[in-house]
C-alpha cells in the first residue's frame, strides 16, 4: 500500500499524542531513575544543593551493593514461600478436582470465605497463633502463613477440572500411584496455571513487608533488605537518619530487579492471573 501524505491537522494530533505519551514515560520512569541514581552516589552527593540531576560517572560506586550482598541468609525465606506454595497448592487443587471424597463442596466454600478476610483483621490473632506454636523470630514463622494460598488452590482446582479424567484413569490403569499421577501426568498438563501461581506466590512472598516485620526481631538477620528498608525510611521530624541513603536505594533496587525480570518475561501469565482474579471478584 502506498503511504498517503498526512494532513497538517493529523500531524498536530500525532505530535500532541506523542508529547503526552512522552510525558507519561517521564512521570512513570523518573522515580526508577531516581532509585538507580540514589543507589550509586554517596551521602554528600545526596545532600548537594542545588540538586545534581545527573551525577558525573566518576562519583558513582557500587559500595552499597557490596555491603548488602555480604550479609548471609540473604532472602531465602521469600524464595521458599514460592516453592512450598506451588507444591502444596497443586496437591490440594488436584485432590479437590480429581479424587473422590466427601465434603469437597464444603472445603471449596470455606476456601472462598477465607479469601475475604483482610490481612489487617487477622494480623493480631495470627501473631498470637504463630507465637504460641513457638515460631516467633524464626524463618519458618515468616514462611508459614504464606506457604499456601486459597486463591491458588482454587485456581489449580479450576485448571485440573479441565484436564480430562481419561488421562488420569489411563495412568491409574498402568499402575501409577496418586503421587506419580500428580507429578508426572497432571502437573505437566497444568504448566501454564502453575506458572501463574508461581509468579503470584513469588510476588506475594517477595513483597510482603508487614508480616515479616511483625514476627521477627527488627535486628535479626533473616532478611537484610527488610531490615535496611524498615530502619531508614521513616520520616522522622528531623528529616535524616543514620543509615546512608544509598544503602536504602540499593536495597530497594535489589529487591526490585528479580520481580522486574519476572514481570517482563512472564507478562502473559501475569495478566492471566489478573483476569482469573477479576472473574472471581
Amino acid at each position: 500500500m502506498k503511504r498517503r501524505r498526512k494532513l497538517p491537522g493529523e500531524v498536530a494530533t500525532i505530535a500532541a499524542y506523542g508529547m503526552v505519551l512522552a510525558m507519561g514515560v517521564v512521570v512513570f520512569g523518573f522515580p526508577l531513575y531516581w532509585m538507580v541514581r540514589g543507589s550509586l552516589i554517596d551521602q554528600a552527593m545526596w545532600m548537594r544543593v542545588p540538586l545534581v540531576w545527573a551525577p558525573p560517572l566518576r562519583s558513582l560506586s557500587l559500595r552499597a551493593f557490596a555491603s548488602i550482598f555480604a550479609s548471609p541468609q540473604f532472602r531465602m525465606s521469600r524464595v521458599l514461600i514460592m516453592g512450598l506454595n506451588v507444591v502444596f497448592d497443586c496437591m490440594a487443587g488436584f485432590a479437590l478436582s480429581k479424587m473422590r471424597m466427601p465434603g469437597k463442596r464444603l472445603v471449596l466454600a470455606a476456601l472462598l470465605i477465607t479469601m475475604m478476610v483482610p490481612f489487617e483483621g487477622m494480623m493480631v490473632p495470627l501473631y498470637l497463633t504463630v507465637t504460641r506454636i513457638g515460631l516467633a523470630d524464626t524463618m519458618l514463622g515468616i514462611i508459614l502463613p504464606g506457604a499456601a494460598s486459597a486463591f491458588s488452590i482454587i485456581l489449580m482446582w479450576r485448571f485440573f477440572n479441565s484436564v480430562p479424567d481419561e488421562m488420569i484413569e489411563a495412568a491409574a490403569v498402568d499402575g501409577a500411584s496418586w503421587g506419580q499421577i500428580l507429578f508426572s501426568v497432571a502437573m505437566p498438563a497444568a504448566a501454564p496455571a502453575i506458572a501463574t501461581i508461581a509468579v503470584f506466590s513469588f510476588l506475594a512472598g517477595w513483597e510482603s513487608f508487614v508480616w515479616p516485620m511483625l514476627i521477627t526481631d527488627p535486628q535479626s538477620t533473616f532478611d537484610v533488605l527488610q531490615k535496611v528498608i524498615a530502619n531508614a525510611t521513616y520520616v522522622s521530624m528531623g528529616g535524616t537518619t543514620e543509615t546512608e541513603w544509598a544503602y536504602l536505594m540499593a536495597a530497594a533496587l535489589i529487591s526490585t530487579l528479580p520481580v522486574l525480570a519476572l514481570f517482563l518475561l512472564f507478562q502473559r501469565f501475569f495478566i492471566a492471573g489478573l483476569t482469573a482474579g477479576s472473574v472471581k471478584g
Partner: protein
Amino acid sequence: MFLLPGLSIIFLCVAIPSALAFGLSFTHCSRFLSIQWAGLYNYRRLLDDPVVLKAFGNTVRYVIVFVPANLVISMAIALLLNREFRGMKVVRSVYFVPVAVSGVVAISIFRFMFDRNYGPINALLGTLGFEKVPWLWSEQWAMWAIIMLSLWKSAAFFSLILLAALQDVPKDLQQAATVDGAGTVGRFVHVTLPSIRGVTMAVLVLSSIGAFRIFEPMFVLTKGGPNDSTQTVALQAYDTAFTGGELGYACAVSFALLGVILVATAALNKLTARHV
C-alpha cells in the same frame, strides 16, 4: 493425603486467626492474654473515640480522592497505550514498571522524591518559581504526597488490566460507529465503555477496597503523623494492638473497618448497576 499440607496451613493461619479475631473483638484482651468478656463495649467505645473517628475521617478522605483519580488516570493511560506502532512495546513496559516495584520499595523511593530539602520534586518546583512544599513533614501536605505515590503504583497496575480489556473490544464495532458518524468521544462513551463495563467495575471495587485498607505508606513513612493527619483505620488498629497492647479493641476496630468496606462495596455495586 494431598489436601493435608495446604489446607492445614490455611486452617492454622487464616481460619483460626479470623475466628479468633472476631471472638476477641468482644473481649477485653491485653497483651498478656488476660481475656475478659466485654460484650459490645469495644464497638460502643470506638463510636466516641476521637482518635478512631479521626482515623476513619482520614481514611474516607483518602478513598474519596484516590478512587476517582485512580480510575480516570488508569483509563487515560490505557487509552493512550491502546494503539499499535513500532516501539509501543517498549513504551508500555516503562508505563507498567511500577507494577513490578513492590509497595515498600515505591514508598522508599518517594520518600526521597518528596524530600523537602534534597528531593527532585521540590527542586523542580523551585526551578519553576514556586515555593518549596514540606510534603511529608507537614500536616497539610502529607496525605497528598501519599496519595500521589499510591497513584503512581496503582495507576500502572489498573491501566494494565484496563488495557487488556480494551484490546478485547471488537475492532469492527468501533469501525461501525465511525461509519455512523460517531466522534472520538461518542465512540468511547457508547462503544468502548459499555464493552469494558465489567472490568471497569472490578477496577472500581478492587481499588476502593484497597484504598480503605491503606496502611503501608503511613506505617513506613509517617507513622500517622504529623499530628495524626495521616492516621488511618488500619494503622490505628495496628497501633492499638502492638503499641497499646489492647488486642480486643484492635480487633473491634478492624471489624468496624471490614463493615465499612462491605457497605461501601455493596453501595458501589448497586450504584453502577443502576446507571450503566
